[in-house]
């Protein structure tokens, strides 16, 4: 199955990736998507992830066509 994988903020800089597509064997998890997209780079601490723009966990299952996103802790708003 094909997965779109996106990286934001410092994770984009660390991995050198903004967006890529990977082929994964089924079944697969969010963590599998990370490993396939980054070539098994070390998983940063405090990483957050989403499946189809909803917060997810690293051991959640993914499906063909899903958009997986990885990003650091959020810092919106202010003060």
């Amino acid at each position, binding site marked *: 199955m094909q997965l779109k994988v996106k990286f*934001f903020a*410092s994770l984009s800089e660390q991995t050198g990736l903004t967006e890529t597509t990977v082929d994964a064997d089924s079944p697969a998890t969010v963590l599998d998507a990370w490993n396939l997209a980054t070539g098994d780079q070390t998983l940063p601490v405090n990483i957050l992830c989403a499946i189809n723009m909803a917060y997810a966990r690293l051991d959640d299952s993914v499906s063909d066509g899903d958009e997986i996103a990885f990003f650091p802790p959020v810092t*919106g708003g202010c003060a």
Partner: protein
Amino acid sequence: MTAQLRGEAFDPWQELARTETGFVKGKHGACASFIGTMRDFNVGDKVHSMSLEHYPEMTQQFLEAICTEAASRWNLIDSLIIHRFGEIKPGEPIVLTAAWSEHRSEAFDACRFLIEELKARAPFWKKETTDTGERWVHDAASE
């Protein structure tokens, strides 16, 4: 309910007034608003500018979802969120949250809910430019 992402500076007072032009006069007794503005200091350092990155589709969905949740939890007449992205200078508003209701308690509670939920979970990331270069705010906060 309105949730907007803006790439340009905005005037929160004009936005509040513009929203109220759509109301039936005499129906709301309270408007509570929060305006977050960029400081020129953080973690003990002078900050010259900031770049705010976001995950456009997820951020928009998230802001709309918390407006919907606020409407389900409190008896609101309307709610509004505007949040900047891109390059921001000190003194510029970053975020506006507002809630209108018949009485003050619901407006206060809903406005606070919107900004706290946004801050805790909306996918935005700040990168500051200081005297020593650029840094991600989530890194600076954990140093």
